[in-house]
């Protein structure tokens, strides 16, 4: 019994600690926020959040707090109901840990920024919205968190608002997320109409659902988690500063869509059509993103496409009806992806803003700690045995292999896994090894606690997180135990194949053959031609249709054709047909008289 009180208290205390830097400057006059106070706040909140997580691990106690309502008017209230189950209790410390490391890194990275406190407050607001989303027990509160992370993403991507590409990227993020929101609102409406509730307990205990609201939820996840079709905003979101990319677009915001599907999985579990759609969509996204990552030369874009690919893999896991495994992948992915972004941020800043891997080389000698952690991150990403990624990626591939579902999805996912190894190795080779291709006058210095501590902390997390999480949580479904040796080692084999491919290609780049454009290179470099096709074609068609409606429909049709001109045309047509009758001969006129009198007599009869 005492567990529940302690659990509830510590969770609410954690959430209140996070809210302090936002609320205190409003209440007291003398309190000024600063980057270090915000970092220490998040660190305190992380340590506090370890209490409920350990309680959950050792006693299995979950908690639901319902019916605290924030009444605005008589009819409009926000139901503050929080659900502390295994997903939100595990996500809370992981998100806080990653955010703490990123904020500490950002004190160095953004130190020359004039509005650094505003930047940190934006990141904190984003964190609050994300935690609202994950701990929400009510779809309305989840929607508030959902929109909150979307808005903060817009503000943070366009942080340097003088830059045109940053503004277009921020708009792109908002618009693509909006299209996904249509789906979410559709599902929420269906829930409100049929179940008359938005509470997750009541709504999702019902196990049968028609396909339409599930399609809405999948559309929402496609928009937020950048699946194929609504994916272009994620690579474009790299216009924001690196801490933003590390926090939002790798660990926390983009997993919100997958998190939604995990929360609503009781509805999805019975509908095989929706599950198959998730599976195929995820497989397509993961392969497409991995293909695009192969030829990118900007280090942040490579990691962005890698994120997109892993999100596709999470969607595949949802399609296999394994929400807990998807959540495990979210947790382990957060660690090594945030670390990859922080390492790339350290490299970029040390090279004075250089982001192109063609101008980096031999970073191992210049920035040893950063590159060691980059290597650890890449190994974890590839699913090296017993690092963090292995505990989540390998079971996904094993489950995919031993299930009786879509073979095509299986093939795509395996290809994407090997491409993951290829582009990770390409990035490693071009950035870390060889002789240096950067300007020899740049001074590099990574010997700053604000860089080393976060990166090594996250490296420790990448190595141990998988083991720790799987040791202390009980699986809800039994994993497949028996399978042939080839199936068991399938993921490892394709990864080794990908590494061999990368090594062969890097050998070829040293040989003296003049490189040329070819079709696969062009497809991959221009991101599958998706961006120009959708951004230009659909908008020009829409604008043309609008112009036709404005000019032709109103002006031409209503004012001319329906009115005077149309009438005149009708008259002219009638006159032209009857002009042959006006011959001038009396016989014709007498015949027409007789005909009309006959018709009148007959009709009166």
């Amino acid at each position, binding site marked *: 019994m005492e567990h529940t009180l302690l659990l509830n208290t510590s969770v609410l205390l954690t959430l209140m600690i996070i809210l302090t830097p936002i609320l205190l400057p409003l209440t007291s006059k003398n309190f000024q926020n600063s980057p270090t106070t915000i970092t220490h706040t998040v660190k305190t909140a992380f340590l506090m959040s370890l209490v409920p997580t350990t309680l959950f691990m050792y006693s299995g106690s979950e908690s639901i707090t319902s019916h605290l309502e924030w009444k605005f008017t008589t009819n409009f209230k926000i139901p503050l109901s929080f659900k502390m189950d295994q997903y939100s209790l595990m996500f809370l410390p992981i998100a806080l840990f990653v955010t703490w490391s990123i904020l500490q890194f950002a004190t160095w990275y953004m130190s020359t920024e004039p509005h650094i406190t505003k930047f940190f407050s934006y990141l904190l607001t984003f964190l609050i919205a994300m935690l609202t989303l994950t701990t929400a027990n009510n779809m309305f509160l989840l929607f508030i968190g959902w929109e909150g992370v979307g808005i903060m993403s817009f503000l943070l991507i366009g942080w340097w608002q*003088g830059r*045109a590409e940053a503004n277009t990227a921020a708009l792109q993020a908002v618009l693509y997320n909006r299209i996904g929101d249509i789906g979410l609102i559709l599902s929420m409406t269906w829930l409100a109409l049929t179940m008359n509730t938005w509470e997750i307990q009541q709504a999702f205990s019902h196990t049968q659902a028609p396909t339409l609201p599930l399609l809405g939820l999948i559309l929402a996840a496609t928009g937020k988690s950048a699946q194929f079709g609504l994916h272009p905003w994620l690579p474009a979101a790299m216009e924001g500063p690196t801490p933003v990319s590390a926090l939002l677009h790798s660990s926390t915001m983009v997993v919100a869509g997958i998190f939604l599907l995990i929360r609503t999985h009781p509805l999805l579990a019975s509908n095989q059509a929706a599950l198959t759609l998730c599976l195929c969509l995820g497989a397509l996204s993961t392969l497409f993103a991995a293909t695009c990552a192969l030829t*990118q030369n900007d280090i942040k874009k490579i990691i962005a496409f890698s994120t997109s690919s892993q999100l596709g893999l999470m969607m595949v896991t949802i399609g296999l009806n394994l929400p807990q495994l998807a959540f495990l992948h979210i947790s382990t992915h957060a660690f090594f992806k945030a670390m990859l972004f922080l390492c790339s941020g350290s490299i970029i800043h040390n090279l004075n803003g250089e982001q192109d891997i*063609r101008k980096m080389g031999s970073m191992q000698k210049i920035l040893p700690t950063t590159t060691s952690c980059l290597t650890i991150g890449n190994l974890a990403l590839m699913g090296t045995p017993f690092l963090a990624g292995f505990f989540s990626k390998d079971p996904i591939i094993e489950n995919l292999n031993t299930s009786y579902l879509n073979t095509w999805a299986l093939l795509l996912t395996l290809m994407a896994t090997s491409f993951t190894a290829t582009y990770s190795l390409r990035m490693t080779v071009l950035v870390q090894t060889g002789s240096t291709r950067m300007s020899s006058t740049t001074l590099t210095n990574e010997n700053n606690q604000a860089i080393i501590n976060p990166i090594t902390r996250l490296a420790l997390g990448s190595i141990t997180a998988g083991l720790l999480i799987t040791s202390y949580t009980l699986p809800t479904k039994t994993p497949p135990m028996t399978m042939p040796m080839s199936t068991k080692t399938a993921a490892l084999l394709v990864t080794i194949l990908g590494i061999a491919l990368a090594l062969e290609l890097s050998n070829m*780049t040293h040989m003296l053959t003049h*490189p040329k454009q070819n079709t696969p290179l062009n497809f991959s470099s221009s991101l599958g031609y998706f961006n120009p096709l959708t951004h230009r074609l659909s908008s020009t068609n829409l604008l043309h249709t609008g112009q036709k409606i404005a000019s032709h429909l109103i002006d031409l049709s209503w004012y001319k054709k329906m009115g005077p001109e149309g009438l005149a045309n009708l008259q002219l047509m009638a006159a032209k047909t009857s002009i042959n009758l006006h011959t001038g001969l009396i016989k014709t006129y007498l015949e027409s008289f007789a005909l009309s009198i006959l018709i009148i007599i007959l009709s009166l009869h």
Partner: protein
Amino acid sequence: VGQRAMAAYLTHQQRVLRLYKKALRHLESWCIYRDKYRYFAVLLRDRFDKNKDVKDMVKATQLLRAGEEEFWANQHPQPYIFPDSPGGTSYERYECYKIPEWCLDFWHPSEKAMYPDYFAKREQWKKLQRESWEKEIKQLEEETPADGPKTEALPPARKEGHLPPLWWQYVTRPREIPM
């Protein structure tokens, strides 16, 4: 000093040199390793040098056109762009911090009182600018030809004690990296 003004068209020499530089930059994007790049760069230079002494302009223009088409076919889809160049990753990044200097006039007097000598000196500079404005405009009106200026370059000050035209805009321009 010694510079030609820009004309409305490019000379043949300018076009050939631009093609050569573009080709070298794209070659650098293709051949990442320096020794391989140097090998192909030397071959490219040799191709340009072979046709260096062609005196027939028709043939030279045809060669240039063929070269441009070959460049278009062989260009790199993601050429290397320096971070501060247009299209680069940190181009215009600090544009939002480049505030014009007339905003200083809108400061509250209590804020201006925090930097008294700076604002006093600024008043002197502004007085100088007001005095020399008429003379700058007069000089520009005299020196501009009747059908509009031929070039964007501003002329220097011609008379003793005058300041160059539009000097205030140049002197109060924001810093490149305004931090």
